[in-house]
């Protein structure tokens, strides 16, 4: 397979320099390496800028409702095991509107990969705070700055029992492609939170801001220790780790539910 095999004819409706472009490149790169035919891949999304991504890939696409990508993906994967199911979602879609589904689909552990394009802002609705917006950021709604605590999605996923938890950065496309491929090859629910600059509405967490802070977990990092993974998942500020924080084998929904 080549990048061109996954090329969609649909024109892209993101802002130029949007962090999503890097994620799209990484996703296609991972699919090329995966080697499956487009017809055997299903991309599921909800609503938001990230939810448009399936249209920009030549693969099956189910673009459903805001926050509801995970239940639809669970249903599709369970009904048709031939499909490799990847969800492209955002911080608002997955951690806000769809928070309940995130918790319970981690518990179900279907064999799906969830890429959260986390730009720490609501972009499609023009700049309101999302669950991952840093405290103090001023928006048209949060006029005195965000007062809610910043959600740590990777800690949440680990607490609920996720077996594969990773973080990528949209500028590090090769690194991210590897993460996505690892997530797809992981048997079970794989969560990949991707730091993604929003060039229009998030003036704090920019390419430069992330670039100065992110560092890659190296070969010495042990991704099978839950307490270390917890510590890493909470590391946010001057240094932000990217890579696979946690990777352990767990029985999938399919295995648990029987034939």
């Amino acid at each position, binding site marked *: 397979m080549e990048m061109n095999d996954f090329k969609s004819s649909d024109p892209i409706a993101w802002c130029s320099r949007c962090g999503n472009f890097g994620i799209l490149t990484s996703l296609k790169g991972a699919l090329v390496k995966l080697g499956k035919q487009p017809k055997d891949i299903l991309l599921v999304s909800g609503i938001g800028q990230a939810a448009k991504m399936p249209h920009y890939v030549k693969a099956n*696409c189910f673009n459903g409702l805001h926050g509801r990508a995970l239940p639809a993906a669970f249903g599709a994967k369970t009904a048709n095991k031939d499909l490799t199911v990847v969800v492209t979602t955002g911080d608002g879609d997955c951690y806000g509107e769809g928070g309940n589904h995130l918790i319970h689909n981690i518990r179900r552990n279907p064999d799906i990969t969830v890429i959260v394009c986390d730009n720490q802002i609501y972009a499609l609705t023009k700049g309101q705070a999302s669950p991952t917006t840093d405290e103090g950021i001023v928006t048209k709604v949060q006029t005195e700055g965000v007062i809610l605590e910043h959600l740590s999605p990777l800690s949440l996923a680990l607490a609920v029992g996720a077996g594969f938890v990773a973080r990528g950065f949209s500028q590090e496309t090769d690194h991210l492609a590897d993460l996505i491929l690892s997530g797809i090859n992981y048997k079970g629910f794989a969560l990949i939170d991707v730091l993604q600059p929003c060039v229009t509405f998030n003036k704090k967490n920019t390419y430069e801001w992330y670039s100065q802070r992110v560092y890659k977990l190296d070969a010495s990092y042990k991704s099978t220790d839950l307490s270390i993974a917890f510590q890493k998942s909470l590391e946010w500020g001057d240094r932000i780790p990217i890579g696979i924080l946690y990777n352990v084998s767990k029985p999938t929904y399919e295995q648990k539910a029987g034939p």
Partner: protein
Amino acid sequence: MANEISIRITGEAGQGTQTIGDALSQVFKSAGYHLFAYQDFMSRIRGGNNFFEIRVSIKPVHSPRHKPDIIICLDKSSVDIQKKDLAIDGILVVDKTKFGMAGLEESMYDVAFNEIALRVANDTLYSNSIACGLIAGIVGLDFTFVTQGIQEVFSHKSKEIIQNNVNSARAGFELGLANPHKEMFLLPTVGKDRLAAVPGVILLDGSTAIALGAIKAGCKFYTAYPMSPSTNIMNIVAGRAAVEHIVVEQAEDEIAAVNMAIGASFAGSRAMTSTSGGGFCLMVEGLSLAAMTETPLVMVDAQRPGPATGFPTRTEQADLDFVISAGHGEFARVVYSPGSAQQAYFITIKAFNIAEKYQIPVLILTDQHLQDSITDIPALDQGTAAIERFIISKEESANITSYKRYALTDSGISPRAIPSWIQDVMYVDSDEHDESGHITEDAAMRKQMVQKRLHKKLHGLLNELEQPTSFNIDDAQVILLGFGSTLGILQEAAQALEKRKVGFVHLSQVWPFPSDEMLKLLSNARMIISIENNAQGQLARLLRRETGIKVSKSILKYDGRPFDVDSVIEIIKPEL
């Protein structure tokens, strides 16, 4: 000697009113009688006051009577609560010692359930079988039927437990035979022909009917969030899931349930979800999604009284307006309103076929009364219902290299492929989309897609209508009108008043509204009376909106309880 008898078993939740009721239902079925049983229970697991009422007759029966002839009280408080409901000349069976009652009123009949159970089987639990045997004795059944009924109900229990139950029933039976009111309650003997037909008779309730219909229709993905009175459908499907290879998943909420079902249906499974009104509120966005993405979906709304939490375990028909118009935007849907368990079975199968043929959401509107009521019917003919998938077959799919999910056609129906079966990919979107499924904001395309999803599909659906049932309407003085679970009431009231020119029309499909047929049936009616379990006469309003026909009167009941046929007849009589 009466041709029928109604028996109410009442006590606290957890005392086994349903166990006795189920056993008695089996006993009477074995003996060849027709029966209608319904349940009235509170939203609690223990305590309170529940009842199970069973009406037994030599003729088919479909609805509750106003007053039971025999009330068996399993606890003291039932006596005070239920006494007022007893028929004139009826008896109230009590356990004087256990209840600590000083004296007995004339209508009371003392049976020492506890003492007998301890003596015969060394456990007061067996009081239930004593009650079952007692009733059989009072109405003059052959004890063989009691043994058969008990064996059927307790088939999964040990031999010892079955024997203890039979022995207990025997003790109750002897008491029943000797009871002082015996002549009053003897039932006529069932004819040989009917007895010979018993092996082909089954007992069916609405929940089981829908579950069996779904399984028969090839439903392979069932998801729901538990909510009375819909939960039993999920319980029954789950009980057979392993054998039938059905995925049954309890969702984290109704929003998840409906979206999971849509995802599964999109990917190739027949999928279904069920709930009650409150849960349906949460599913409405999903209903709209199924319509927009043209994904087949079967949904059940087993109504209970609202608004909000309402009466969790009681009955109402107040979601009619809601379900026919639920969901933002305009799209085609079908809403069925089966009137009996038997109808519910066949309509459920049809619901799956129509959902897939038209690629639309199909709703089955039922209610607690239908879900929990049991009747005897001829065994469901498993052969008559065919499954039609209306999808591009796997063989055909292998040759498809170019595919548009929303290809425009005259019928509004695009050939439906399953992802991974065809060689091409497909795009499905909740946004407005073009024929390829990609997002569009084009005005002309928008118009074509609305016509596809709404006008064209509705046009086809008018040829698929489940037509209303009617009886005795030519030259009728009064035509009774209803939908859903009131079918039994309409049937029995019209039959009782047949000679006084009373007929009925019942709708088992309320959307699309069968306007042409209703105009034929009702245009010349002298007087139409709608009978509805809601406070506004929603069906009467719908009839007027769709056909211009006005009903003369509505008999409305919105206290959370079902109609009884006697009360309805009394209300109709002055109009004749």
